[in-house]
């Protein structure tokens, strides 16, 4: 279905990533946002607070991030598309409800504008060290989708994708920005509403009495209902059966958790978005995501000037990880080089998938700024030897 024109500011704009994320949410049909102020993400909700009253949305600044991350789920079960926005310390507090959203299969978007950590860290400076937390931060086993934009334009476009994937797979989607992308201002082109594809909720057409909240038929994603429509349904964070009733046994656990994991893993090829440049014939492939992908471009230019055959693989979705593609590349390239603003998070996954078939080099960085392109360039040179 097409976007509601009411929320779409069609035209060229000069926006920072935070504001572009807000506009993306509006275009995606998000009409409920709960948040708590935290640098460097606050501009997203500040703009939401200004924009929502005139488009029929509701913003509430909650008492903390724990409350924000569950208020959006209340809104989801009332039928809304909903989002919360935070940065590292707040993201830590939201873990409980990322788990709840995964368990209840509540489509929702969690924006994390990453800053340096751990703890209070570097509130105003970039980091990319929440990537594993985004994937595994809540207890128990589950899968999520994580998206990493590298420009204000992508903050707009991919926020819409985040909402669409959330609805398609009934899963919490982590929108993993960083301080640089959040605060950099660039041209953002917002298309007309009728050119924006928006995924509607998978509401059931079954009647009350016929409908079971967690019954699936084949595609592993159950149909949804909302409160107030006469279904008198029950949902629980406890392990539950197709009726949504608690079922405290290992069989039910196996069935449920297996499905929560499989609905993402088995659909990974449909979910994954990557961007490749010159990977055909490359000897070295630089893998990157978020702001680091833009620094990597300079390093790649420098290496190409030396005659090194180097390609670029950018992760737009970071989770699920593009295993199939990476494995294929690993069969013939000399090495992967992966710069990230942490000491090896996505790199762990790269190493696992490469499984010794080729070399892989991490270019780590503690955050607070971005890499010097020379450091990545040196590693490419080393890898090409």
């Amino acid at each position, binding site marked *: 279905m097409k976007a509601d024109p009411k929320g779409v500011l069609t035209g060229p704009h000069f926006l920072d990533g935070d504001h572009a994320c807000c506009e993306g949410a509006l275009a995606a049909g998000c*009409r*409920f946002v*709960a948040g708590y102020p935290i640098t460097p993400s606050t501009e997203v909700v500040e703009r939401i607070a200004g924009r929502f*009253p*005139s488009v*029929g*949305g*509701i913003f*509430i600044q*909650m*008492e*903390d991030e*724990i*409350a*924000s991350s*569950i*208020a*959006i*789920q*209340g*809104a*989801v*079960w*009332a*039928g*809304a598309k*909903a989002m919360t926005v935070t940065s590292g310390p707040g993201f830590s507090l939201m873990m*409980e*409800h990322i788990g*709840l959203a995964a368990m209840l299969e509540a489509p929702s978007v969690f924006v994390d504008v990453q800053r340096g950590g751990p703890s209070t860290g570097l509130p105003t400076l970039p980091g990319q060290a929440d990537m594993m937390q985004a994937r595994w931060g809540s207890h128990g086993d589950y899968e999520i989708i994580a998206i990493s934009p590298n420009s204000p334009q992508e903050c707009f476009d991919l926020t819409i994708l985040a909402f669409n994937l959330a609805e398609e797979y009934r899963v919490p989607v982590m929108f993993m920005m960083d301080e640089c992308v959040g605060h950099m201002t660039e041209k953002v082109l917002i298309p007309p509403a009728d050119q924006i594809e928006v995924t509607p909720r998978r509401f059931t057409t079954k009647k009350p009495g016929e409908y079971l909240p967690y019954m699936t038929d084949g595609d592993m994603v159950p149909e949804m209902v*909302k*409160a*107030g*429509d*006469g*279904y*008198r*349904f*029950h*949902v*629980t*964070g*406890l392990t539950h059966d197709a009726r949504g*009733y*608690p079922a405290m046994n290992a069989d039910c656990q196996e069935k449920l958790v297996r499905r929560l994991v499989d609905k993402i893993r088995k659909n990974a090829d449909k979910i994954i978005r990557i961007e490749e440049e010159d990977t055909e014939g490359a000897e070295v492939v630089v893998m990157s995501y978020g702001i680091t992908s833009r620094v990597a471009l300079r390093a790649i230019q420098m290496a190409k000037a030396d005659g090194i055959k180097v390609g670029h693989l950018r992760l737009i979705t970071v989770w699920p990880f593009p295993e199939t593609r990476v494995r294929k590349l690993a069969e013939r390239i000399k090495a992967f080089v992966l710069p990230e603003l942490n000491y090896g998070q996505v790199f762990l996954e790269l190493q696992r998938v490469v499984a010794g078939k080729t070399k892989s080099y991490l270019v780590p960085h503690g955050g607070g700024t971005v890499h010097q392109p020379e450091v990545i360039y040196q590693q490419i040179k080393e890898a090409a030897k």
Partner: protein
Amino acid sequence: MSETNPVEQYLRMDRMPHIWCSGCGLGTTVNCFVRALEGCQIPLDKISVVSGIGCTGRVAGYLKLDSFHTTHGRPIPFATGLKLANPKLKVVVYSGDGDLIAIGGNHFIHAARRNIDITVICVNNFTYGMTGGQVTPTTPIDAIASTTPYGNFEEPFNLPYLADSAGAVYVARWTTYHIRHITKSIKEALQKKGFSFVEIISPCPTLYGRRNRLGDGLEMMKFYKENSSIKNGCDTREVGLGFKGPIVCGKFVDRERPSFLDMYNSKMAERIGSSFSPYEGIQ
């Protein structure tokens, strides 16, 4: 020929038997709650019940309504999102003292301050039953809990006073002995616009009563009968509870204050002007 209990239509009978111990007061509170629903003309399809975690947290799962069993301490912010996204719903939070007042205490006071239009029913049994009888923020001084083996030495919260000071528009307290009063209060709370709060003192003979030599469920009910008094309109500062002390019950607060959405709509109309259409829910 078998007769059906009139409350069965409100319950998920396919989930019976419930998990509560014999002598527990929770069943009594649920009975009162559904009888209140019977009398207050709200279409059942428009009622949502939200619970947290714990023995009382299981209430949502037994009610044949739209019902949500959420996370520990968080039913109020869940209810806040549910209500704001669809203000036409009647949203009830039904949970225990540990859930609402310890881990969820911050959410409790902020929802009352904002005057979110929900009804909060707190079944106060002075203990964490589900985890084996630990001390809670309402356990009276000197009461024994599994984590206060020498008696509680922390000052407990006086819940009506807390709700009153935080801005609740309706505050009442009853014990499970007062079944007619509970029903009436819940009915009033459901019909009241804004943050309404009903505390129900309830026996947990298994984990609170036994440890404190208060007898079984019946004896605890006798204690409520003999030691409670009804003082409607009583100053909430005067209704704190001591160990084996008197229990003041009644409707303490019933006042008018614009709800969160009333304030939102009037202030936005004032500031934004005629281009603002009053918010009535997500379209």
